[in-house]
C-alpha cells in the first residue's frame, strides 16, 4: 500500500482527469468542499467524495445540533454563557432520553432573563438558542421575535392586552425576546406596562409547550425589575449574565469583522484601535456599545479609508484592503 509521507495527494488536478479520492474522512470531505470553492473540483466530484464518506455518527438532527454548538463555540468570549448553553443542551437531551426510557420528566421551563449591557451578545445567543431548541424538537420553529415596550404597551384600556397578544401570537413555536424588559414596570401600578406583564404571564401558562420568553436588559435595572415583581423571578428559572467584552475580545471581534469584509488592519491601525479601546475617557461609551460600537468603529473606518483612497489616482489591492491608523482618527462619536 502506498504511503504518502508528505500528507495526502493534492486535490488540484484538471477537471477532465478523474480525481483520486482522498482518505475517507471528515477532513477529506472538507478539503473537497474547499476544492469546490476554489474552483479545483466540480460539484459532481465533490458529491462522489461525500458519498464515499462514512455516514456521520447519528442522524441529521444530531449533526445539526452539533453545527449549532460549533457556531456557539466560534463566538468570541462569552465563556460562562457558552457553558450555560451547553448545560441547557445536555439537560434537554437527557430529559428526552429519560422520556424515551419511560422515566419521570419535569415539564421544561426554559424562560430566561438575560442581563448585560448593549452589544454583549444577548440577541445573538437568543437566536442561537432558538435554532438549538428547534433542532432538538423543543420548539417547532425556533424563530426569534424581538420586541420592546412600545410593541407591547398600548395607549388606552384594552389596547395593551391586544398588542401583547399579537406579539405572543407571532412568537408561538419560537422565542419572544423582550429587550429592556424592565421598562414594562416603569410607570408603577397604574401604567399599562403592568397589563403587558400580566398578559405575558398568562401566555406562559397557556403556551407552556410552544413559547419561550426571554427578558433582556441592563444588570441593575433587570435586578430591580425582578425584585419589584417577585412572581416573575420564579417563572424565569434561567438567568444569564453577559459581561462586557475585554479589550482583547473586542480586538478579535474587530479582526473578524474586517476579515469577513476582506479588509485588514495595518500594524499601526491595530495599535490605534487598541489605544481607543483602552482610553479611560471612552470606557463609558464602550460599556454601552461593546461589540456593536466596535462594528460602528469598523464601518466608519472603512468609509474613511474610502475617502482617503478616492483621492489617489491609482490604488493597489493592498491599498484597497488595508485600514490604516489615520482611518481611525475621530471614529468615536
Amino acid at each position, binding site marked *: 500500500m502506498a504511503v504518502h509521507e508528505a500528507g495526502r495527494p493534492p486535490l488540484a488536478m484538471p477537471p477532465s482527469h478523474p480525481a483520486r479520492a482522498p482518505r475517507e474522512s471528515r477532513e477529506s470531505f472538507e478539503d473537497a*468542499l474547499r476544492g469546490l470553492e476554489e474552483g479545483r473540483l466540480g460539484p*459532481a466530484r465533490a458529491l462522489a467524495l461525500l458519498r464515499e464518506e462514512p455516514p456521520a455518527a447519528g442522524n441529521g438532527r444530531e449533526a445539526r445540533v452539533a453545527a449549532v454548538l460549533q457556531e456557539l463555540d466560534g463566538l468570541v468570549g462569552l465563556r460562562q454563557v457558552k457553558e450555560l448553553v451547553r448545560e441547557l443542551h445536555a439537560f434537554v437531551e437527557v430529559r428526552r432520553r429519560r422520556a424515551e426510557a419511560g422515566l419521570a420528566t419535569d415539564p421544561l421551563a426554559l424562560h430566561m432573563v438575560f442581563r448585560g449591557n448593549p452589544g454583549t451578545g444577548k440577541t445573538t445567543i437568543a437566536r442561537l438558542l432558538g435554532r438549538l431548541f428547534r433542532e432538538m424538537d423543543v420548539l417547532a420553529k425556533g424563530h426569534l421575535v424581538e420586541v420592546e415596550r412600545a410593541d407591547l404597551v398600548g395607549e388606552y384600556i384594552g389596547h395593551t392586552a391586544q398588542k401583547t397578544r399579537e406579539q405572543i401570537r407571532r412568537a408561538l413555536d419560537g422565542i419572544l425576546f423582550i429587550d429592556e424588559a424592565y421598562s414594562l414596570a416603569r410607570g408603577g401600578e397604574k401604567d399599562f406596562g403592568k397589563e403587558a406583564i400580566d398578559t405575558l404571564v398568562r401566555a406562559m401558562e397557556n403556551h407552556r409547550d410552544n413559547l419561550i420568553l426571554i427578558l433582556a436588559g441592563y444588570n441593575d435595572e433587570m435586578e430591580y425589575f425582578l425584585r419589584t415583581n417577585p412572581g416573575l423571578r420564579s417563572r424565569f428559572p434561567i438567568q444569564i449574565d453577559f459581561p462586557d467584552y475585554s479589550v482583547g475580545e473586542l480586538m478579535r471581534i474587530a479582526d473578524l469583522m474586517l476579515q469577513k469584509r476582506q479588509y485588514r488592519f495595518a500594524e499601526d491601525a491595530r495599535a490605534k484601535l487598541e489605544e481607543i479601546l483602552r482610553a479611560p475617557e471612552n470606557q463609558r461609551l464602550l460599556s454601552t456599545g461593546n461589540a456593536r460600537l466596535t462594528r460602528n468603529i469598523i464601518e466608519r473606518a472603512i468609509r474613511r479609508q474610502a475617502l482617503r483612497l478616492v483621492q489617489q489616482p491609482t490604488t493597489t489591492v493592498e491599498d484597497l484592503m488595508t485600514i490604516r491608523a489615520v482611518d481611525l482618527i475621530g471614529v468615536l462619536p
Partner: protein
Amino acid sequence: MNTVLVTGQPRAGKTLFLIQFAAFLNVQELRLHVTAPGEPTHILTLPISRARAELVDGADHKTRALQAVDVEVPVRKHVRVIRLTDTTGLSDDIHQEAAVREAMAQTLRALRSAEAVLHLIDADRAGRDGRAIADVDREIVRFMAGRGPFSVLASKMDLPQAPLGLERIRRAFPEARVIPVSSVTRLGFPDVRRFFAGRW
C-alpha cells in the same frame, strides 16, 4: 421539525416549486429564512403573489443562498411542520464565479445533514436532450440511496417534451421514486404532500 432540501441543476425550477408548493399548502405570505454562505440568516417576508417576480427568473444561479420556508403538512390528526429549503443549483462544470462555487459548497454541506431530499430534474429539457441528465443528478441519486427519504421530481411536466423526458429520467434512475410535477398546473403536488406526510 423536519428539514427537506430541494436540490437540482440551475433552472430545474427549484425556487418556483418552493413558492408554488407553499401556496398549495395555503401559505399566503412567504417567510423565507435566507442564509448566504458565511452570512447570518435573515428573514425575507414576501406575499406569495410577489414571490415569483422577486425570486425567479430565467438566469442561471438566481438563488445563491439557502432559502427556507416552514410549511405545515397535515398528517392524520396532527400537523407536521416541514422546513423546505431551496438551494443553489449544482452543475457538472466548475463555475467561474467564486460566489457561485461557494454557494454550491453550501448546498453540499446542507445535503450532508438533510433529513429528506427532493431532487428536481427538468423533464422538458431531458426530453429535448438526453444528456441534460447530468453527472451531478446521478451523484445525488447515488448519495441518497439508503439514506433518508428521497424522491426525484421530474419538473416542468406542462411543457411539450416533458413526457419523453420523464421516460428518460425513469430509465436513468430505475431504483428511485420519480414524481412528475408541474409548478404551473400543480400536477403531482398531492403526491409530494403524501411524501411529506409519510413515515420518516
